[in-house]
Structures are given as structure tokens and as C-alpha cells.
């Protein structure tokens, strides 16, 4: 059986690490204040389709027949849906996040920092939880594929509008100019 974290070429990473409890509010503030879009530190990790950080204070208590349950420390969840294998991704995560990784996971127990690539990867793996089932609607497409395809779609829409009702003369050359690899 294949790796349950994988669908197509996509990988589902789930990391849940204990937070050094007195620092939770600092961490929450830091994550909440991170910029979105190009300002997000995750924008520097190019093979990431979707990712999130979530501070989880305590497990849910439903009441009824459930008895109260609790962690020894709150957890910091990080999940990512990315392209390719885990090891190269962890290296791009380490390099791409840089000081942001130190600040964020520096709130967590035994985080070694990003200076040592091997120690960083080993720490992430120690706190990793395997997916039981991973669904990817387009697991064969990399981030690069998706962005390139969306751009091709946009350009074809414009090209078709610009050439609507025109003659055959020159259409082929214009198409080849517009869509040359």
C-alpha cells in the first residue's frame, strides 16, 4: 500500500507540537499579525498549495457520556498540502520561513531552530501525524502547473475575444506567438 499522506504527487503534512504554555498569547499574536498573500512567510515556500497554523488550546469537550480530557500543553498545528516528497519540502520550508520559523515554532517544546537542517527536519518528523485518508481534487498538478494553467486560460480568453469574427489569415501565426512555450 502507498503512503497514506500522498495523493498523486501531492503530500499532506500534519504537524502538532506542544507549546511552551506561558508563551501561547505571544504566539497567537504573532500568527494573527502575519500578512496575507505575498506578505505571508508561506509565500516564500513555493511548492505549498494550502497551509495553516492553528493554536489549539484544548481538545473539545462534548459533555454527555464524554469525560473531560486535556493535554499537558496546548498544541500548535501546522498543516500543508504541497508538491513532491517530504524531505525536499522540509528543506524549502526551513530556508523559506527562516526567522519566521524560529519565532513561530520557537514557542514549541524542544524546537532546535532552522540553523541545522537535519535537526529541523527531525523535529518536524517527530511531531508529524500521518494522514489516514487524503483527498486531492487535482493531485497531479503542482503549484507551478496550476498557476501556469490559470494564466494560459486567462490569455486564451483574451485571445479568443480579440480574434472573434476575424479572418483565417494570420490567426495561426498570432496563436503561435501568443502561446509559444
Amino acid at each position: 500500500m502507498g503512503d497514506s499522506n500522498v495523493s498523486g504527487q501531492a503530500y499532506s503534512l500534519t504537524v502538532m507540537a506542544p507549546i511552551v504554555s506561558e508563551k501561547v498569547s505571544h504566539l497567537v499574536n504573532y500568527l494573527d499579525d502575519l500578512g496575507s498573500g505575498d506578505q505571508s512567510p508561506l509565500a516564500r515556500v513555493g511548492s505549498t498549495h494550502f497551509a495553516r497554523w492553528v493554536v489549539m488550546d484544548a481538545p473539545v469537550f462534548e459533555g454527555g457520556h464524554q469525560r473531560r480530557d486535556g493535554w499537558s500543553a496546548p498544541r500548535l498545528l501546522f498543516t500543508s498540502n504541497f508538491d513532491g516528497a517530504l524531505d525536499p519540502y522540509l528543506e524549502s520550508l526551513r530556508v523559506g520561513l527562516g526567522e519566521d520559523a524560529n519565532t513561530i515554532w520557537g514557542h514549541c517544546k524542544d524546537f532546535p531552530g532552522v540553523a541545522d537542517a537535519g535537526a529541523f527536519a527531525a523535529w518536524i518528523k517527530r511531531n508529524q501525524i500521518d494522514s489516514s485518508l487524503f483527498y486531492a481534487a487535482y493531485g497531479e498538478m503542482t503549484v507551478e502547473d496550476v498557476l501556469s494553467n490559470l494564466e494560459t486560460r486567462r490569455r486564451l480568453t483574451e485571445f479568443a475575444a480579440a480574434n472573434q469574427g476575424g479572418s483565417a489569415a494570420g490567426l495561426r501565426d498570432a496563436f503561435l506567438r501568443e502561446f509559444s512555450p
Partner: protein
Amino acid sequence: MSNVEGKATAITVMSPVWPGARYYLSALFAIARQPWAKPALEKLQTLSFIHYARWTVIPKFPDGDKAESLRYTYLFFESNFNGTWDEYIDAFSEVVPVRMWSIWFSSFGFPGPQPVEPFKRYIRKNEYVANHYWSAYPGASTTQVISAGRVAEAVAELRERAEGLDEKAFEEAYVEMLTKIQNDL
């Protein structure tokens, strides 16, 4: 805090399950991963707004070199989808209620996927809001991503053939391509 980035919405749910249910859930997901069970997962494609989703059975939580055992096993679920939270839960409730039931019935407090309002209250109670959420293409829905894949494929195919076609034949091939992918534009 934000569960939204452009068109993309994050949902993160973790629910405690009955004692012993971890064995049932592990078996259920092991079966769902089998190639012959693929049609069951493909049913999710009818929910055409899901980019990525995962389920994880957590009997123990990582804690450095060891692991922390709690009283219960937990069922973790995350999804990345386009559209609103309410639309998403409505669709799950309406389109795949049996699958929903088979996955969550062993969770404490699960009211069933229908009627939808108690189900929404349950999800809200078991949900964690993301402190930071990232999407590489926040302006694109799942349908747009898949459509763009078909468009790019058609463009590449025509580009390869174009050199061997005269202008009249190219125009015919071009119109044929546009007709084929018109719903993807």
C-alpha cells in the same frame, strides 16, 4: 485569525471518538485507501468545491521523543474549499450523508448530518479557527483550477499541431478547440 484567503476557506475540526472506535476508523480509512475503493472517494468530486481534504485518526499526540496519550482517540479533519462555510456544510449534509455518518457516527455528540442545523452546531463546537491561512492561488476556485488544466492541455495540443496546418485548416482546428473547451473558459 482567519479561515479565509481569497476564495479559499479553511475548516479544521477535531472530535473525540468513543473508546474502541479508533480500530473501526483505522479500518474504514484503510479500506477507503484501497484502489478498488476509489469510487467511494471519487464521490467527493461531486462536491466540486473541495481542493484538498484529509482525515487523521490520532490515538496519541506527538510530544517530543515520546507521545501523549489522552483518555480518548481523536478524529482530525481539515478541508480547503471555495465558497462559504454554510454552503460547504449544507452540501456535505445533502450530497454525502451516508459517508458523513460512517465517518463521524462514533464521535461524541455527533447528531448526524441531517437535519443540517444541529450538524452545523456540532461542527462549530468541534472547530478550531486558523491563526494564519495561506493559499497559493486565492483567486481560483477548484472548478477554475481543473478547467484551466483542460484549457492548457487543449492549447498545448493545438500548438503542437499548428506548424503542420495551413491557415484554413488551423482556423478549423482552432474553432474546434474553442468549441470543445467553451465551458472551461
